[in-house]
Each structure stands twice: as structure tokens, then as C-alpha cells.
């Protein structure tokens, strides 16, 4: 799409001013009474520079000479607001007295021969009589005459106030969301503590203490997963932190090892992995390698290239424990383990003479739904 300004239709090289255009405003100035004098007497450099400005579809202005006379094009008109009627040919620092303090240093540098460029620079001004914060992306460049002397300054400018305010509002909204997330997870944890208190009171007379303890322990595991998530405002949790948080409850540091690339899991994967590890560790503590002092658990994970996408593979290997056999009945714990990571059901359990070996796999994207998979695992591709 061509998007030409209304003021630059040229006929035989001469401007035909369009009503309301910068050309028309330029023609309306009484130049005979102006320090620059009649247009016919202007130096060639000024005439050319003014024509370049007038013809450009980008909003820009030119400040010329010792008087700092202000010229602008049609695209610049909306920026002038109420000062438009007096703007053409005005003295720059009088016309823009409100913005002058903030732009003066860069402007004077351009007069001294050095260009400068600013992106989203704050320029406080009072365009409509009241002070307001505005932001601009602009550049100042010196305009030289045929002898090489700086005679004026050209400014290409675009107001970015709307963009900056939108970005600020977005940042604010993100921050509010974070506060809300934090507050919400605090409430969730309060509620979990209440559930625990109610359960321990309600189930006081239940004789199957194992079942009551299993329930309480799962609730505590869920609470710990929330703690890990809270560290990162509920966005993602480090797998190392999750593993550590669960396993330290069940075993001394010398009884387990964990190794694998750092991966950040989203909240639902964090809860899933925490409960899965909790069940594995609870079983190991009751029947497996963690039930004897010399037993070990080796936890390994990796990202495996797979089709159609990469898989996260986690293996849990017990050794130096008692001889294990598959459980004869399927309790909730076994079913939780059978669900695998995020309920994919991809769980392989081998009860080997050396101990339980369990492998779980899930598409990496399932574990990191709320984030960018590539940036989260450090892969720049």
C-alpha cells in the first residue's frame, strides 16, 4: 500500500499546496518580516533542506540558523496540537519551551556536528496546557551547507507514548498476576493445612493408621511441591529443586543421587513429579533400598530425541536393598506410579533381583506447557 502524505503532490517540480498541508502553512508565513527574509533570498542549503523535509512522509522538522527557525512537514502536524497555528517559522526553543530542557543537550550536540538517536526517550511536555509524560523515538542530525558548516539540525521523530504506555500496562498486569498467583498459592497452602487438621481430627479413631499416615504424607508432599513452585512465582520449578525437596524427606543425602540436565517444569508437571517421586520413595522406604542403611537410589533423567518430539525420560534405580517382588495388590500408590508423568501412563517397572528399576517418559512439551520449551532447557535452536 502506498501511503503518501497529502502535501507532496508535485507538478512540474513546483509545489501545489494542499489545504491544511505544511506547504500551505509555509506559504502563509510573512517571510519578508522574518529574520530569514523572503524565500527567494534563502541560501541553497536551506531551500533544499526545507524541500526534503516537506517531501518526506516521515514526521520530521528542521531547525535553521542562528535564530533556530522551525520548519516541519505535513506528517509532523498532529504532533503540534494547539501550537500548530504559530509553529511554522517560530523560534524552536520558544515553540517547544516545555520540551526544550530535555532535548537541549542532544540538540546542541547536533549543532556542534554530532548526530544522536533516542529510542522511547521520555520528554515531559505540556501540549494541551497540562504537564504530561510523553515518549519519543527520534534522531538529531546536523545539516551542513556547501562549505561544510553546520547551519541547521534535522530531527526525524515519532511519538511512541502509546507503545510505551501499553508496555508499562502489560508489565504492571504481569506483576499484578504474579502477586495474585502468590496470594492464591498462599491460600491454597492454608487450605491444605486446614484439610490436614480436619483429616487428623476426623480420622483420629481410624485403626488403620497406615492409611491415615499415607494420606497425611501425600498431602505434605503436595504442600512441598507448592513450596518449590512458590520460589518462582508459580511459573516453573527446577527439577533439581523438586527432586531434592521430595527425597530429603525420605532419605539421608548419602542414600540417593540425582543427575540430569536442569529442566524447568510447569506447575502441573511439578505436582505430578512430586507425587510420583513421593510414592517411589515411600515404597523404597517400606520395602526397597531405603529400608536398609546401605541401600541406594539413583535417579537419572535426560532429554531424548524422539519422534515426533523430544521426550523427557526419568529413571529410578534402587540397589543394595532387599530382594523385592511386585506388589500383589494395586493400591492408590501403585496406581499413582502407573499414571507416570502427567498421567501419560508411560511407566515401566522392573522388579529385578538388585532392586526396583522404574522408567518414566513423557513428551517434553507436556511438562513445560506454560513456557517456551527451547528457552527453558537452554537450547538456542
Amino acid at each position: 500500500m502506498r501511503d503518501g502524505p497529502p502535501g507532496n503532490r508535485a507538478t512540474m517540480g513546483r509545489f501545489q499546496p494542499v489545504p491544511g498541508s505544511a506547504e500551505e502553512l509555509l506559504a502563509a508565513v510573512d517571510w519578508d518580516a522574518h529574520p530569514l527574509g523572503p524565500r527567494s533570498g534563502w541560501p541553497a542549503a536551506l531551500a533544499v533542506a526545507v524541500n526534503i523535509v516537506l517531501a518526506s512522509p516521515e514526521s520530521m522538522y528542521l531547525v535553521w540558523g542562528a535564530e533556530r527557525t522551525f520548519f516541519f512537514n505535513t506528517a509532523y502536524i498532529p504532533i503540534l496540537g494547539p501550537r500548530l497555528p504559530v509553529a511554522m517559522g517560530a523560534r524552536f526553543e520558544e515553540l517547544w519551551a516545555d520540551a526544550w530542557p530535555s532535548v537541549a543537550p542532544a540538540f546542541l550536540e547536533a549543532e556542534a556536528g554530532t548526530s544522536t538517536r533516542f529510542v522511547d526517550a521520555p520528554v515531559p511536555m505540556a501540549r494541551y496546557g497540562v504537564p504530561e509524560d510523553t515518549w519519543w523515538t527520534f534522531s538529531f542530525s546536523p545539516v551542513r551547507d556547501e562549505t561544510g558548516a553546520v547551519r541547521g539540525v534535522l530531527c526525524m521523530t515519532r511519538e511512541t507514548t502509546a507503545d510505551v504506555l501499553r508496555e508499562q500496562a502489560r508489565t504492571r498486569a504481569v506483576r499484578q498476576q504474579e502477586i495474585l498467583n502468590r496470594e492464591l498459592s498462599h491460600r491454597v497452602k492454608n487450605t491444605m493445612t486446614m484439610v490436614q487438621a480436619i483429616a487428623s481430627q476426623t480420622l483420629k479413631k481410624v485403626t488403620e493408621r497406615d492409611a491415615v499416615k499415607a494420606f497425611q504424607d501425600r498431602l505434605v508432599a503436595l504442600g512441598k511441591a507448592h513450596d518449590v513452585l512458590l520460589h518462582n512465582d508459580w511459573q516453573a520449578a527446577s527439577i533439581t529443586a523438586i527432586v531434592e525437596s521430595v527425597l530429603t524427606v525420605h532419605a539421608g543425602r548419602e542414600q540417593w543421587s540425582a543427575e540430569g540436565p536442569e529442566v524447568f517444569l510447569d506447575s502441573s508437571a511439578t505436582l505430578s513429579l512430586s507425587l510420583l517421586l513421593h510414592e517411589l520413595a515411600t515404597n523404597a522406604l517400606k520395602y526397597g533400598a531405603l529400608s536398609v542403611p546401605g541401600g541406594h537410589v539413583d535417579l537419572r533423567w535426560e532429554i531424548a530425541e524422539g519422534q515426533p518430539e523430544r521426550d523427557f525420560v526419568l529413571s529410578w534405580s534402587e540397589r543394595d536393598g532387599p530382594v523385592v517382588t511386585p506388589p500383589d495388590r494395586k493400591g492408590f500408590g501403585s496406581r499413582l506410579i502407573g499414571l507416570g508423568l502427567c498421567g501419560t501412563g508411560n511407566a515401566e517397572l522392573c522388579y529385578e533381583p538388585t532392586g526396583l528399576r522404574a522408567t518414566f517418559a513423557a513428551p517434553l512439551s507436556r511438562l513445560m506447557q506454560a513456557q517456551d520449551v527451547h528457552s527453558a532447557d537452554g537450547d538456542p535452536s
Partner: protein
Amino acid sequence: MTGKTDVRTPPATAIILVVEDEPIIRLAAVDLVEEAGYIAVEASNAAEAVRILETRPDIRVVFTDIDMPGSMDGMKLALCVRDRWPPIKLIVVSGHHTPGAADMPEGAVFFSKPYSESALTAALKQLVGEVSG
């Protein structure tokens, strides 16, 4: 559990001050203390806890939540206890904060809420044992 004989349980005279603003959670905490074989004294905020401590020299352990309304939260209470009644042992719990060792009064034990009741009971017994021993 009650009814079982635990040789490690010290005489059931140790008095534990339970400070928790949420009544149901306080009820369960008091229960936990009594199940462990001790006597529980209750306070629903830090100011009340300080008043009790000022009148009862027999409190051995203060078991407090951090997050409570009032000008003094559980952490300030714990620091105050460490300052004014150094022999009293401390258990601090919270569902919101995970204080680092540097933020905690010396010797205080921290549990995140919801806590494992068996782990908390074990910590309580150990602290009472330390006082008695």
C-alpha cells in the same frame, strides 16, 4: 500413639505453648502435642503468647505459626522468646515463608505447612529431650 509405651518419652510434664490463630489448625496442633505425651497451653496470637510466658515459667517449648495477625508475627515472637527466655526451645511453622537459617533464632526448628505430623512429633520429642537432658 497413646497407649503405647515409648521408652524415650520423657515424663509427661513438659508444657508446650502452641501459638496459632486458626482455631482448627490450633486444635490439631494441640492434639499432636498431647498425643506426644505433653501438656499443651494455647495462644491465638503473639501478644497472648507473651502474656502467658510472662506468668508461666514452666513452658519448655514454644510451637508457633509465623503468619498471624497483630503487630507481632510468629517470627518476631520466636526472636523475642530467644531474647527473653533463652532456655525455651522453638518450633516455627509457616505455609507462606521458608526462612533461611540466618533469619531464624538460634536452635529453632522450622516446618513448612502442611507439615508431617510424625516429623514434627519427632522434633518436639528431641527438643524436650534436650531441655530435660
